[in-house]
C-alpha cells in the first residue's frame, strides 16, 4: 500500500477522537440519544478508516479477525445472557428490575450490559464486513 | 376359526406369502413352493368364508376408522363371496402356470413378479370383501398400482409405453370420475356403506342420479366400457399369466364387480328404475359389446383379440346389471364366473402356444391342434364358452341374461346378445378351423411344460363342469337379487 502522508496524519489525528466519541455515545445511551447500535457503528467507522488508510495487514495486526469473530458472537451472548440472568434472578425475560437491589439500579445495570453487548456485536460485524470486502478486492 | 379372522386371513395371506417369497428369492424351488402353498391356503380360506356365509353368519370386520364416518371395513355379501372364491380359486392354477411360464421363458426378476402378483391378489380380496365404497376404492387403487409392475415386467420400450396407457387410463378414470362420484354420493347420502336397497333413494333428483351413474360407470375404468377400454389392449404387453388372471379375472372383474355393487347397494335397483338415463347406459354397454366384437374380428394377434373379446364380454355383464331385472342380475353374476373360466383358459392356451411354438398371431396357428392337442382342446372349450354354446358355462349365463332381458322387456339387449353371439362365432371359429383342419407348418414342437398344461386343462374342465353343476353358484347369485327386490 502506498503511503499518503496527509491522509495518514489526518487519520491518526481523527481515529482517537472518533473512538472517544463512540464510547461517549455508548455509555451515554441510557440518558440521551445514543446506544449500542450507533456506538458500534461509530467505533467500526474509526477502524474502517484505519483499514482504508493503512491497509489490511496493519489493521489486522491489532484487531485480528479471530477476535472479531468471537466478539460478534460474544455480544449476542451478553445480550441474551442478561435476559437469562434476569430469568434466573426470578424476573421475566429481560426484566432488568431484578438485576440489582432496587429497580432503578437494576434498569441501569441491565440496559448498560445489553447496550454493551449490542455495541460489541455491531462493531465487530461491521469491521468483519469491511475486512472481507477489502480482502476480496485484492484477490480478484 | 372365527369369521373375522378368516376375512383377515383372506386379505393378509397373499401379503404374508409375498413377503416370504421376497425372503426366499435366492432359492427358486422354495419360493415356488411358498407361492403354491399361499395360493392354496388363500383359496381354502376364501372357500371357508363362503361356507361360513352360507351358514348365515354375519361377516363384518371393522379394520380402522380414518375419520368419523369414514372407515375401512369389510362385509361379505353373496357376490363378494363368489368373487373372492373365484379369484383365489383361479390363482392356484395361475400360479402353477406362471411358474412354468417364467421358467420356460427364463424371465428376469421372477421374485418381483410373484411378489406383485401376491399383492394384486390381496387387493382383489379387499375389493371382494369391501363393506363400503371407500374401502372398495382404496383396494381398487392398490390393485391398479400393484399390477403396473406386472404389466411392465418385460421392461422394454413397448412395455413401458403400454404400462403408461394402462396406468394413465385407470388412474385418470378413477381419480377423475370415480372419486368425485364417491364424494358426491357421500355428500348427498351422508354415508358410503353398502346397504341393501341402496342409499340414494329419495336423496337425489333422477336426472342428477343419471349423471352420477354415468360417472360411476365410466369412472370404473376397469370395467372397460367404451370409451374407457383403451387400457386393456395396452396391458397385453404383460406376460401371459398376468393377462390370464388379472386381465381376464381379477382386474376386469373387479371393475364389473364394482359397478354391480354400486348399482345394487348404492343406487338400489328400485331407485335406479326411476332414473331415465339408466336406459342410455344400457345402450352404451350394448354398443361396447358389438363394437369390441367387431374390432376383435380384425385382430391377428391372439392376445389382442382376446383383449377385445374381454371388453365385449365385460359389457355383457354391465349391460345385464343395468337391465335391472332379477334374472338378468343372476345372469350377470353367473357370467362373471363363466367368462372367468373361459377367458383364463383362452389366455393360458395363448401363452402355452407362445412358450412352445413362439407364435403370437392367429395366422400362424395352422395345424396347431395336432402339435398341441391338449392346449387346443382347452382353447376350443374356452372359445365355446365365449360364444355360449353348450356344454360350456357361457351357455348358462347367457341363458339367464336373455331370460332377464325378456323379463325387463329390453329387446335391445336381446338383439345385442344375438348379434354378438354371431360375431363371437365369427372370430373364434376360424381359429379352431385353422388349428384342427389345416396342415401344420414349420418345425415340429411339443406341448408346453407340464405345470402350464395342468393349469389350462383344469380351468377348461371347470368351464365344462360349471355347465352341469351350477346350482351352488346360482343359489348365491339368486340371493344377490333377493337383496334387491
Amino acid at each position, binding site marked *: 500500500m502506498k503511503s499518503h502522508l496527509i491522509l495518514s496524519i489526518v487519520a491518526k489525528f481523527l481515529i482517537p477522537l472518533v473512538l472517544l466519541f463512540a464510547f461517549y455515545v455508548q455509555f451515554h445511551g441510557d440518558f440521551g440519544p445514543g446506544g449500542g447500535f450507533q456506538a458500534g457503528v461509530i467505533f467500526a467507522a474509526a477502524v474502517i478508516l484505519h483499514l482504508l488508510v493503512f491497509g489490511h495487514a496493519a489493521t489486522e495486526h491489532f484487531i485480528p479477525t479471530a477476535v472479531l469473530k468471537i466478539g460478534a458472537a460474544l455480544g449476542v451472548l451478553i445480550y441474551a445472557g442478561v435476559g437469562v440472568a434476569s*430469568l434466573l434472578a426470578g424476573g421475566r*425475560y429481560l*426484566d432488568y428490575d431484578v438485576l440489582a437491589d432496587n429497580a432503578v439500579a437494576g434498569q441501569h445495570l441491565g440496559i448498560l450490559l445489553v447496550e454493551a453487548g449490542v455495541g460489541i456485536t455491531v462493531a465487530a460485524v461491521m469491521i468483519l464486513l469491511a475486512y472481507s470486502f477489502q480482502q476480496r478486492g485484492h484477490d480478484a | 376359526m372365527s369369521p373375522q379372522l378368516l376375512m383377515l386371513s383372506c386379505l393378509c395371506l397373499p401379503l404374508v406369502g409375498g413377503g416370504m417369497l421376497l425372503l426366499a428369492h435366492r432359492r427358486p424351488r422354495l419360493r415356488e413352493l411358498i407361492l403354491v402353498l399361499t395360493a392354496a391356503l388363500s383359496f381354502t380360506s376364501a372357500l371357508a368364508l363362503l361356507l361360513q356365509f352360507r351358514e348365515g353368519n354375519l361377516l363384518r370386520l371393522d379394520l380402522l376408522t380414518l375419520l368419523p364416518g369414514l372407515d375401512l371395513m369389510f362385509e361379505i355379501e353373496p357376490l363378494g363371496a363368489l368373487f373372492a372364491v373365484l379369484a383365489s380359486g383361479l390363482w392356484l392354477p395361475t400360479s402353477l402356470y406362471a411358474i412354468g411360464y417364467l421358467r420356460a421363458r427364463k424371465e428376469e426378476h421372477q421374485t418381483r413378479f410373484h411378489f406383485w402378483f401376491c399383492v394384486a391378489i390381496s387387493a382383489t380380496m379387499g375389493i371382494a370383501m369391501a363393506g363400503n365404497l371407500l374401502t372398495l376404492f382404496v383396494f381398487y*387403487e392398490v390393485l391398479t398400482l400393484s399390477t403396473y409392475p406386472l404389466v411392465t415386467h418385460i421392461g422394454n420400450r413397448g412395455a413401458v409405453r403400454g404400462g403408461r396407457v394402462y396406468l394413465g387410463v385407470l388412474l385418470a378414470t378413477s381419480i377423475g370420475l370415480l372419486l368425485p362420484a364417491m364424494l358426491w354420493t357421500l355428500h348427498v347420502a351422508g354415508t358410503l356403506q353398502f346397504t341393501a336397497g341402496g342409499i340414494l333413494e329419495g336423496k337425489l333428483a333422477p336426472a342428477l342420479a343419471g349423471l352420477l351413474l354415468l360417472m360411476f360407470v365410466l369412472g370404473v375404468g376397469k370395467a372397460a366400457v367404451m370409451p374407457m377400454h383403451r387400457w386393456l389392449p395396452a396391458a397385453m404387453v404383460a406376460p401371459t399369466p398376468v393377462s390370464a388372471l388379472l386381465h381376464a379375472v381379477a382386474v376386469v372383474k373387479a371393475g364389473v364387480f364394482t359397478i354391480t355393487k354400486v348399482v345394487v347397494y348404492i343406487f338400489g335397483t328400485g331407485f335406479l328404475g326411476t332414473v331415465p338415463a339408466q336406459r342410455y347406459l344400457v345402450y352404451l354397454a350394448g354398443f361396447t359389446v358389438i363394437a369390441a366384437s367387431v374390432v376383435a374380428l380384425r385382430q391377428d394377434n391372439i392376445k389382442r383379440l382376446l383383449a377385445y373379446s374381454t371388453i365385449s364380454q365385460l359389457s355383457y355383464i354391465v349391460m345385464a346389471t343395468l337391465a335391472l331385472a332379477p334374472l338378468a342380475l343372476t345372469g350377470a353374476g353367473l357370467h362373471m364366473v363363466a367368462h372367468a373360466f373361459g377367458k383364463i383358459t383362452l389366455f393360458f392356451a395363448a401363452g402355452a402356444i407362445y412358450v412352445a411354438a413362439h407364435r403370437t398371431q392367429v395366422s400362424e396357428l395352422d395345424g396347431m391342434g395336432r402339435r398341441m392337442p391338449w392346449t387346443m382342446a382347452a382353447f376350443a372349450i374356452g372359445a365355446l364358452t365365449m360364444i355360449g354354446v353348450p356344454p360350456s358355462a357361457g351357455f348358462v349365463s347367457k341363458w339367464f341374461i336373455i331370460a332377464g332381458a325378456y323379463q325387463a322387456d329390453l329387446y335391445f339387449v336381446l338383439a345385442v346378445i344375438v348379434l354378438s353371439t354371431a360375431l363371437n362365432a365369427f372370430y373364434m371359429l376360424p381359429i379352431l378351423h385353422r388349428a384342427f383342419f389345416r396342415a401344420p407348418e414349420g418345425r415340429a414342437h411339443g406341448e408346453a411344460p407340464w405345470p402350464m398344461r395342468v393349469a389350462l386343462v383344469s380351468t377348461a374342465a371347470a368351464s365344462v363342469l360349471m355347465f352341469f353343476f351350477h346350482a351352488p353358484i346360482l343359489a348365491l347369485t339368486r340371493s344377490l337379487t333377493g337383496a334387491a327386490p
Partner: protein
Amino acid sequence: MREHLPILLVVLPMLAAPICSMLPRGRQAWLLATAVSWAVLAIAASLLIRVHAEGTISYALGGWPAPIGIEYRLDGLNALVQVLVAAIAACVLPFSGRSVQDEIDADRQPGFFALLLLLITGLLGIVATGDVFNVFVFLEISSLATYGLIAFGRDRRALLAAYRYLVLGSIGATLYLIGIGLLYALTGTLNMQDLAARLPAVADTRTAQTAITLVMVGLGIKMALFPLHLWLPNAYRFAPSAISAFLPATATKVAIYLMLRFVFDIFGVGFAFGRLELNEVLLALAAAAMLSASLAAMQQRDVKGILAYSSVAQVGYIVLGAALATPIGLTASLLHLFNHALMKGALFMAMGCVMLRVGRTDLDAIRGLGRRMPWTAAAFVVAGLSLIGVPLTAGFISKWYLVLAALEAGWWPLVILILVASLMALIYVWRVVALAYFAPNESQRREEAPLSMLVPLWLLVLANIWFGIDTRLSVAMAESGMRVLMAGPP
C-alpha cells in the same frame, strides 16, 4: 422455570447460535445444534400440552404488560405450529450431520449451523410473538439466515437463487413493514390483540385498507403464494440438502400461519373477507397456484425442482381451505399445513440421501434407485403417495377435508380442481417412481445412505402413515387451531 418456557423456546437457539459459530469444528457445532433442537422440541411439546390443558399462555417480555411491552402469546394455533417447526428441526438436524459434512467446507460448517439455529430462532419467534413489529424483526432474522444458508449450496446457481430471494424477500418484508407502520399510525398500537380491538373503529379509512393490502402482499411473497412464488423453486433446488429439507416444511408454513393470524385474528373475517373480499382474490390465486405450479412441476428435469414447484401448488391447497373461511375449511387448511410439512420434509430428505450418494438429483440420477438405495427409494414412494393423497397416508386426510369443505361451501369447481391437481401430482411423482424402479441402470451397486440420515427420514415417513391412519391427534389439533381462528378478533 416452567412459566418462562415460552421465551426459553426462542432464546435457547438464539443463545446457541453464537456459541456454535465460535466452535472450532463442524462436528461439535452439529452436536450442539442437534441437542438444542431436541430441547426445543421438548419445550414446544410441553407448551402445546399446557396450552391444551390450561388455555392461552401469555408472557410479557421484560415484565412490561401486554399492550405496552412485547407479549408472547401461545394459543391452540401457534403452539401447534411451534411444535411443527421444532419437530422438523429435530428431524433435520440429525439428518444434516452427514450431508453437511459432504456438501460444505469444513471451516464453514460452524457458521452453517449457527445460521441454521438463527433460522430456527426466527421462525419460532414469528410464531410465538404477539407483537406485529416483533414479527418483522424475527421475519428478517429468519430471512437473512435463509439467504445465507441457501448461498451455502454447492452449485453456483445457489448464489443467484439466494440473491433473487434476497431481493424479493426484502421487498416483501418492506411492504409488510409499511403495512404495520400505517396500522400503527392509525391505531397507535403494535400488539396483535390491541390492534384487533382498535381496528374496527378505523376500518373504513383508505389507510387501513392500504395497510391490509400491503401486509397481505408482503406475506404473500414470504409464503410463495402464486404469482409471488418466483423465488422459491431455485432457492429450494440449489440450497444444501439439509436446508431444502428444512425450509419447505417450515418457512412457508410459518408465513401461512402469519397470514391466517392476520386475516382471522387481527383484521377479522368480516372485514378482510366480507368487505374487502380478499377471499375471492385468495381463492383465485390458490386455484392458479395449484394448476400452474403442478403443470410446471410436471415439466421439471430435476427432482428437487419438481418438489419445489409442488410446494407452490401445496401452498395453493392450504390457502384454498383458509379462503373458504368455514370451520371445516380452516381445519383442512391447518391439517394440510401440518401434513404437507411431514411429506415435503420426507421427500426432500430422500433427495438429500440421493445427493449424498449420487451427487445429483436430476431424473437421470434417479434411474435404478430402487436397487441402489432401496430404503431411500421406498421412503420417497411412501411420502410421494402421501403427496398425491392416497388413502392411508396423511395427504389423503387433509385433501379429504379440503374436498368436504369445498362441497359444503357449494364450490363444485373447486372439488374438480383439487382432483385434477392431485392427478397432476400423481403424474409428476410417478415419473420419479417409475424411473427409480422400472428403469434399467448400469451401476447396480448397492450404496444406501447412512443410518443417521435414514432414521430421521423414516421417522417422517412413518409419521405420514401414522397420521394417515390414526387421525385423532392431528385432527384434534387442527380443530383447536381452527377454533382459535374462528373465534375471531377479541
